[in-house]
């Protein structure tokens, strides 16, 4: 025994941190140019670019809204989460 070894790497993704969110970022697919700036800065690894558009993983997005503030074309808005 050398200590705690975790072989199932990245297994923390079972934590659904999306429940933290008070504001939800919403991508306007007509405006999104798929540049990936939001993905690059997302602290939660919760954005993928699929077919040239940003897709948000709401299971894990904590709603910090960095994506909204860095988007160069203003394609991301925010909505208050329903209680």
């Amino acid at each position, binding site marked *: 025994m050398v200590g*705690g070894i*975790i072989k199932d*790497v*990245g*297994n*923390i*993704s*079972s*934590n*659904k*941190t999306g429940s*933290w969110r008070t504001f939800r970022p919403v991508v306007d697919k007509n405006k999104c140019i798929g540049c990936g700036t939001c993905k*690059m*800065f*997302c*602290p*939660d*690894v*919760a*954005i*993928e670019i699929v077919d040239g558009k940003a897709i948000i*993983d709401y*299971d*894990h997005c*904590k*709603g*910090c*809204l*960095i994506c*909204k*503030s*860095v988007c160069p074309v203003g394609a991301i808005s925010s909505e208050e989460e329903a209680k």
Partner: protein
Amino acid sequence: MSSEVISSGHSACAGCGEIMGERMVLEAIGKDVIVCQATGCMEVTTTPYPKTTFKVPWVHVTFENAASVASGVVEADRKLGGDATVLAIGGDGGMMDIGFRALSGALERGHDILVVITDNEAYMNTGIQRSSGTPKYASTTTTPAGKVIPGKLQWKKNIARIAVAHGAPYVATASVGFPQDLAAKVKKAKSIRGPKLIHLFTPCPVGWGFDSSKTVYYAKKAVETGLWPLYEVEHGKLKIDQKPSFAPVEEYFKGQKRYKHLTPELIAEIEKHVKDRWAELEKQEAAGINLQLLP
């Protein structure tokens, strides 16, 4: 969703600049890496045993000894014929205060390691206590601004210069607001043998008191105002990577609760410090002198 190096689901605060920086560093290094992580936010939020966010070899060590463990890991790896990038990573507390002795020892012995300091300028994990990375006049829970003191009374420790003085062949500063610059520096560090150090600026929404959406804004603003110079020192030669516009420092302080007590006099003192520091940096760059001290 996840990247090649970390997965989502970690419990770093919304808008955390530190996990953003750690991911950028790991993505620039690639899969052939062994991470030695000092205690701090990036340990407690990423790896509540038996879960982990990391998808690369990663070992948690204490606050004190990330650089010592990395020293042993790299020597073992090389003896076994490996060529992994051995990364010692920790915050300002783990590298500039508590783990400083281990860091100094590793730099002096000359191990082939990369040290990254994810600097959020206080002990955020334990409740925003001041560290040697806390800037002058920032309010923390142990340097509370009020009638007695206007926040921390000392200037921030210049850890990059201390690393240069150890004879480290590559030392650089970086900010999460400039990911391409950071990635280029990580890749350059990878290509150089011996101890390398990158001092990385990672804003903290909770500890600094700003909205979680503004992390990148402040990471850029610190550079644009000249408060966080982006430079590198390769084999003792200093090169400034980005000449800032020198926007007024108030633009950076505005909106951060830790600075809300600042008076025009205190701001003027900081502004002068920025100017003096830049004059010195530019002089050193122009002179092309070797900054590495002779032992």
